[in-house]
């Protein structure tokens, strides 16, 4: 595994920074333009969720490169209020902030693998992987 690089999310503009890093790493790994856009969009969603709900957090990128497959793994970690009902949050159209409610389910569809852990009062940890085809 390659060493990971992280972006702290504190301000709205940090979302742009995270997105750019994600896109750059995706480009380096050899993803096509469509997958680059998918990854950038997914990073944007996760970073915005951190900014909107937890205010502070971190997004880390890791390159997975072994014999079986290559891919980009991103982990979004925050110590915000947590999600009380994950299955509800994963439904299309469910939102608590007046948005479209397509963020989390959208990220799941944009990426190949998706894993979410959340504890009330502890924070949320989302891990998503996209494989190079």
């Amino acid at each position: 595994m390659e060493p990971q690089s992280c972006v702290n999310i504190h301000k709205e503009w940090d979302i742009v920074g995270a997105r750019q890093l994600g896109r750059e790493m995706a480009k380096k790994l050899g993803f096509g333009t469509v997958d680059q856009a998918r990854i950038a969009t997914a990073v944007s969603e996760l970073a915005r969720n951190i900014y909107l709900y937890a205010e502070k957090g971190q997004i880390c990128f890791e390159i997975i490169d072994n014999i079986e497959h290559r891919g980009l793994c991103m982990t979004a970690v925050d110590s915000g209020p947590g999600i009380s009902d994950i299955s509800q949050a994963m439904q299309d159209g469910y939102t608590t902030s007046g948005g479209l409610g397509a963020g989390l389910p959208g990220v799941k569809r944009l990426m190949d693998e998706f894993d979410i852990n959340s504890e009330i009062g502890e924070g949320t940890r989302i891990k998503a992987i996209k494989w190079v085809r």
Partner: protein
Amino acid sequence: MDSKFKQLVIDNSDSIVQKWMEEIGSLKSGNYTATISDELYEGTNREFVNVIFTSIRNQGSTKAVEDFSEKIINLGWPLSYITDGLQVFRRVSTEYLLTQSDEMDSTYFSNVLTSVDNWVEPLIRELVNEYSGSWEHILSLQRVALQELSAPLIPVMEGITIMPLIGTIDTERAKLIMENLLEGAIKHNSEVVLIDITGVPVVDTMVAHHIIQAAEAVRLIGSTCILVGIRPEIAQTIVNLGIDLSNFPTKSSLKKGFTKALEITGRHVVDIEVKENNIEQLIKSIQGE
């Protein structure tokens, strides 16, 4: 006591400067200034130490300090150059003053420290303020510049207006887009408003949400909004995200959107050449007779 130290430092400025230059020179290798040419570095160091001594001699002369910090900014050197330089100066002159005296009790020691601090600290404060102040100034200018090119609205034809969007859309900009769009649509009496997102790098749910809201608001004031410039990869991410854009027309390019807008306003493009050809033929036929 203080004036005595001051006199001592000023009288022996040569040896202090020499020591300072040596220390600063040794800082150069292996840090941020490594790529700077030796001549420029030495010249600037000399200027720096002159500024320090001028300010010690007559406290309150700010012109030299201002000029110097401006020069450092123009050179693009980091703030740590200034702080490092003054830190070294503090150490060198304290050491010098201590070696000049046989008294070694703690009062003398603390007196030396206090007076050197009194010279250096206002200088640090001033230089750092100047430096960061000018960065803040640049930043605020850029923010204003960004705001200016944020959401322009271009009336291209009677009833047709285009809003090209370039770059990242954040909450503040989204608000501006909505305001400009509605205000402009009413002002120009637009029947059709084209929003061009060719230059928007990523369309996530927030951006889509703002565009949908803007389009809905445009619909409420009686105009039609067409979203144009949707690149293939953006189209795919929008579908993946499950965003519903079926409520208003979308086109892949501005050209197609404009044709559609002409259609809505009851116009279409006619080639002039065909007419010219006809006229030429007419003339020929007349000449032939």
